[in-house]
């Protein structure tokens, strides 16, 4: 699908919702839902995307949509999808319908991990999209297991005795890959073509598909609202957030900056949440972050068979 085709498709998330200016979650949701021309039923975990798009009596969703609770976007969708399979079998529904669950990193990496794991293991024909903004943003920027090492959050505040979060980010995409589902990917909204292609593939896949999408957050990360896609791009160019996919257990790297790989400081220095790391006493923290990124990147390249 090219840009021209895309431009004539109707958006499935209406404007006028109350997400922050520059929020990546709505960009991601719109691109993902444009990736199929089939009808969609969506679920949403409690979080920014949910609360800001459905303040009663308004809704921004042009597709059937359900929010149940924080930790069960996947399990809820598994019930909807099963209902669909049964009704289709019984001849009560003829249409070919696609199913997509959205969740933030809180609802996916943490509280919803079990619900996601169960849904993937059972093999439901659904797509799960994690918009990963790297903290509990909806409740006011508390750390999640996705929050990077050294981040200043409300529950890992910097202080005399703390440089911020003391743990590295959970590798959820690899955790999902461990379920050996047909399709797993990591994507970024700055590369809309890549995200769109991955979403298209995910919808076309029979069985569960999962896409983890980096979702820069203006208030949570601390950068000007027009820089969202730059933030996403820098996460990719520094190899902090590599773009890759796993199809039938084969790992494929989708983007390699090669010798243009940027140092992690190029990403860190643009955000208020990392500002404290540039104090002289935290030089070793930045060093550890760089070492961690490099190690993960090498490991990923090896896994993808890239030299």
């Amino acid at each position, binding site marked *: 699908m090219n840009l021209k085709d895309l431009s004539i498709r109707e958006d499935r998330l209406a404007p006028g919702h109350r997400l922050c200016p520059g929020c990546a979650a709505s960009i991601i949701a719109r691109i993902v839902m444009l990736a199929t021309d089939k*009808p*969609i*039923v969506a*679920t949403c975990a409690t979080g920014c995307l*949910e*609360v800001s798009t*459905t*303040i*009663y*009596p308004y*809704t921004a*969703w*042009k*597709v*059937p*949509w*359900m*929010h*149940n*609770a924080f*930790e*069960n976007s996947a*399990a*809820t*969708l*598994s*019930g*909807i*999808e*099963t*209902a*669909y*399979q*049964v*009704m289709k*079998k*019984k001849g009560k*529904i003829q*249409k070919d*319908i696609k199913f997509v669950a959205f969740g933030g990193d809180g609802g996916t990496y943490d509280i919803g991990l*079990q*619900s996601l*794991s*169960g*849904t993937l*293991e*059972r093999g439901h024909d659904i797509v799960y999209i994690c918009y990963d903004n790297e903290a509990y943003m909806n409740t006011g920027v508390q750390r999640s297991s996705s929050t990077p090492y050294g981040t200043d959050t409300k529950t890992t505040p910097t202080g005399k005795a703390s440089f911020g979060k003391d743990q590295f980010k959970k590798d959820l995409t690899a955790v999902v890959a461990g379920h050996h589902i047909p399709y797993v990917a990591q994507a970024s909204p700055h590369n809309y073509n890549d995200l769109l292609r991955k979403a298209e593939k995910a919808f076309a896949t029979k069985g569960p598909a999962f896409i983890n999408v980096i979702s820069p957050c203006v208030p949570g990360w601390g950068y000007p609202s027009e820089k969202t896609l730059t933030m996403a791009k820098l996460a990719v160019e520094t190899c902090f957030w590599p773009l890759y996919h796993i199809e039938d257990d084969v790992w494929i790297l989708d983007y390699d900056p090669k010798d243009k790989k940027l140092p992690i400081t190029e990403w860190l220095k643009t955000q208020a949440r990392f500002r404290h790391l540039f104090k002289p006493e935290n030089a070793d923290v930045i060093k550890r972050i760089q070492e961690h990124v490099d190690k993960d990147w090498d490991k990923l390249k090896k896994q993808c068979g890239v030299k």
Partner: protein
Amino acid sequence: MNTQELKKAQALSGAEAVAHAMRQIDPDVVPAYPITPQTDIMHAFAKFVSDGKVTGELICVESEHSAMSACVGASGAGARVMTATSANGLALMWEIVYIAASLRLPIVMSVVNRALSGPINIHCDHSDSMGCRDSGWMQMYAENNQEAYEQTIFSMKFAERAKIPIMTCMDGFITSHAVEPVILFDDAKVKAFIGDYRGDWPLLDVDKPVTMGPLDLFDYYFEHKRKQSEGIYLAKNIFNEVAEEFDRTFGTKIDVVEKYFFDDADTVIVAMSSTCGTAKVTIDKMRKEGKKVGLLKIRLFRPFPSWELRQILKGKKIVAVLDRSESFGAFGGPLFTEIRSAMYEEKGPKIVNYIFGLGGREIDAGMIERVFTEIDAYKTNEIKEYVKYLGVRG
């Protein structure tokens, strides 16, 4: 059952009887997670699925939380949905139990009553379902296997017509695992009674997209809760409608309460579930001795039939309410507080509470007889203790 009826009966446990009801209802989706003593329902239903005797899908989820979450999804999609659980399983569902009710999704959940942890215990009491008596679900309690079976079929139609989910409860092990003669209705009759189901605004109607479960703040939330409250209150009328249809179809009466040697009794026990069977045996014996004792069995606990009970119980001299669960820090068990509240405007009867049978502690005819004897004395004596404990040491 008379000899004629016994010939038509099958030997089934309560759990198997409920599984047969589920087979006959043939729901579209059954998301469930095994927990003792609910397991036997799941085993029997899973076998029906494996043998191709039902057309719906069993989703073997990874937890009760996901079981109820998938129930909400499937029911919101427009499917007919059932599940089953016990004790800690119900506790794990708790958050979504409330959501199911607020979305007015008519899910039928068989609750095989078991004591809540802690300490962990697998045997019967009502702490699990009583704990969510304010969740917005309707609740019915079955005395025996036959009732558990009939109530399940009744509940499906009741829930769908009222647009409110229902817990249909039976006593763990005592009812779920004991084998009794059960008369199953004709499959086709059940099918005809239940009829087809389609949700009002199903998610799968993609041409009419709906948003379910939006953020609802101070400007609307209260009105929605008020309507929910009105809905469950009005469900009592629907209960009577469905009961009439049930009687017409199957020749079986289901009422919100059942009276046993009640009308001329001046000394009365109010109870629920399998304990009513024990009370009936005791009453038979005591009646032979010329004692005017009787039983009022409560079948519908939510919506609570306060008005009906007020009419039924007024004029009685002394009533003992038997609660198979504790309400810590409250003035008596849940059934007791409901009944005392219902009777407040009446001059009588005197009402006392007995909490019994926690964690599966045995209750026998001797204990029921002791209650009757003890409360008989309250007709003239002053009641010094309103909340008493039955069958506990110390």
